[in-house]
């Protein structure tokens, strides 16, 4: 039962591939990367010990193709595959295929993935484990009229969710019956294209709930522990963008109760490995089971920073058949951690993706700052994948210190060539309600109804205006100069001019 893993293939890309490679290096395990055409110089390829090309850029022709991943694993001699999150992470067919090929899939069993991956079965399992669930209805091939009746029974506003869903895909809030049809159609079509499964169901949409989840870790010997909660209420398009641990509203008693609930569904479903049990928490601190994510979460680092546990290493230890090295009482909760997801998106334009080349890219550093980045300078951000380029995760001795350090780190970031969500995060971290910890999943639309995430002061705007004017002035002077000295090529004149220039500009009357 106990296998020493010597080589792991990481069936993913971006920051999570980098994260897993780092864990492998820390364990002395060889890390094998796979890459599509547009990822041939991606950071995960550069950091890995080995790298295998697996096809064209679209993920359906590369990262999602079971045969290609398995072939690369066989060729490299990897004993195990880590799927990261997304792509094949919650794909029971792939997990089964690994088992059939004699490769360790780092995750729960195919049976557990199937059970919990289907939101409807998961709901049933939760009820069996005596967990409170949100009122809702399944749609078993109902036509529109029947579906509307069910929606009415649950009561608007309702949430339409993909049975096979995750990451906000195939999810729609519907406030009025007249918007129901289009939302149902869109959610189902999105679910089909994202998961190959168009089934959706309806849930009561709670008023201003918090999203709080419990990290669990289970071994193959029946041991299961939880590693405290993460508050993930700051969401846009039902996607988390800022996460923290502990939750500002958590009490030791509630943590214990929710932790026990999470462990009970894990035990009920034979869970193995790292996983997350998601809950909605109402304003009165009553909580409802949402779903179990049978994978490593994007936001796992906030848990790592407050517990000191390296979750990826523990995943690998569990996959090797080892019993958990921690008992519940070993899990500490030290200080406070906040994660900001840095997306290549334009927040002011409703978070539309922003592709292009990272003409500048310098990550922040210093006390309390951890950056899990999937990119480096000059990388292109391709259109084919999720636009998250990095995660900034910051630790402080308390929430106040964590917030101020996060703000500092965001301002240290240097990115050029793309729009990012850095300014968005600064605006949220400056928001009074955020600072007091008064969060809910409708926080963003309530506090920033016009998508106006500017945090600029007049002072900063004025300096930016001066920078823009100086740049224009320099360009015009350069053109004037180069037209006067035609013997010199423009390019070299430009470079010389700019590299040596260090001018002092004085106020007019001083």
């Amino acid at each position, binding site marked *: 039962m106990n296998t020493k893993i010597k080589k792991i293939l990481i069936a993913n890309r971006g920051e999570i591939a980098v994260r897993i490679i780092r864990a492998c290096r820390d364990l002395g395990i060889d890390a094998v990367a796979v890459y599509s055409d547009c990822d041939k110089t991606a950071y995960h390829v550069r950091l890995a010990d080995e790298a295998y090309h697996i096809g064209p850029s679209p993920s359906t022709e590369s990262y999602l193709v079971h045969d290609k991943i398995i072939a690369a694993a066989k060729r490299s001699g990897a004993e195990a595959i880590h799927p990261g999150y997304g792509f094949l992470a919650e794909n029971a067919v792939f997990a089964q295929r690994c088992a059939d090929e004699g490769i360790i899939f780092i995750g729960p069993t195919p049976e557990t993935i199937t059970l919990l991956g289907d939101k409807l079965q998961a709901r049933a399992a939760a009820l069996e484990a005596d967990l409170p669930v949100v009122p809702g209805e399944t749609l078993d091939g109902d036509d529109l009229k029947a579906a509307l009746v069910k929606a009415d029974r649950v009561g608007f506003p309702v949430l339409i969710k993909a049975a096979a869903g995750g990451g906000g895909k195939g999810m729609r809030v519907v406030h009025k019956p007249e918007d129901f049809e289009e939302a149902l159609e869109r959610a189902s079509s999105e679910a089909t294209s994202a998961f190959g499964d168009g089934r959706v169901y309806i849930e009561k949409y709670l008023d201003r709930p918090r999203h709080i989840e419990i990290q669990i870790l289970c071994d193959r010997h029946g041991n299961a522990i939880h590693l405290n909660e993460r508050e993930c209420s700051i969401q846009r398009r039902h996607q988390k963008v800022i996460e923290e641990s502990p939750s500002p509203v958590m009490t030791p008693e509630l943590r214990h109760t929710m932790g026990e609930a999470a462990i009970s569904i894990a035990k009920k479903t034979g869970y193995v490995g790292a996983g997350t049990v998601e809950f909605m928490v109402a304003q009165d601190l009553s909580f409802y089971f949402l779903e179990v994510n049978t994978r490593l979460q994007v936001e796992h680092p906030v848990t790592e920073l407050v517990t000191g546990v390296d979750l990826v290493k523990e995943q690998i230890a569990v996959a090797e058949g080892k019993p958990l090295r921690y008992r519940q009482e070993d899990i500490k909760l030290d200080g406070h951690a906040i994660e900001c997801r840095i997306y290549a998106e334009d927040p002011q334009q409703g978070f539309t993706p922003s592709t292009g080349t990272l003409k500048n890219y310098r990550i922040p550093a210093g006390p309390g700052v951890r950056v899990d980045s999937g990119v480096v300078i000059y990388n292109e951000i391709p259109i084919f*994948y999720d636009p998250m380029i990095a995660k900034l995760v910051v630790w402080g001795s308390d929430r106040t210190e964590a917030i101020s350090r996060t703000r500092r780190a*965001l301002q240290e970031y240097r990115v050029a060539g793309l729009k990012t969500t850095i300014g968005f995060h600064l605006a949220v971290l400056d928001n009074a309600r955020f600072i007091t910890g008064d969060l809910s999943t409708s926080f963003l639309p309530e506090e920033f109804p016009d998508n106006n995430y500017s945090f600029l002061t007049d002072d900063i705007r004025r300096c930016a205006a001066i*920078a823009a004017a100086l740049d224009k002035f320099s360009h015009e002077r350069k053109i004037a100069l180069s037209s006067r000295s035609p013997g010199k090529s423009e390019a070299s004149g430009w470079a010389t001019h700019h590299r040596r220039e260090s001018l002092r*500009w*004085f106020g007019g009357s001083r």
Partner: protein
Amino acid sequence: MSRYLVKIDGNEYDIDLAYRADGYSVTVDGAPVRVTSHRLGETRSVLLVEDRSFEVDVRSNGLADTKTVFMLGVEIPAEIEEYHLGQLRKTAGMKSGPSVQKKLKAPMPGLILEVKVAPGDKVSKGQPLIVIEAMKMENVIKASGDAVVKSVDVSKGASVEKGDQMLEFE
């Protein structure tokens, strides 16, 4: 001497730059400002404004009158024009920036999943026109006002780059 109007976030700054025997002079909205700039390369510099220190990266966006200033972790779009041209424009009562769009351009690169209108269709504000998939999300592009579709320039399954024309209105 050059004088510019710079517009950021709806705020306008009147900036005057001139050579002087001992360097340059800068005034903002008529008030003199002490400015030092140390170049770091073609686009980046350390900018000191009245001893306040910033690392700035100024990029031109193809359009001569639009620049992006990257500083303090964020990108700040700035519209810039010659002061006298700006004054002329204002006298003529013109808005700055492009005129109201008769053309619908792709707001992001992506794949056309659906085209919901045809030439000649009357559309009303909020009506879905086109569905684009970008980075695994479906985005419904809706009409920003009432109009009549003149031409449709994309079809289902096509890839578009950001800024590609998708529709034209009459």
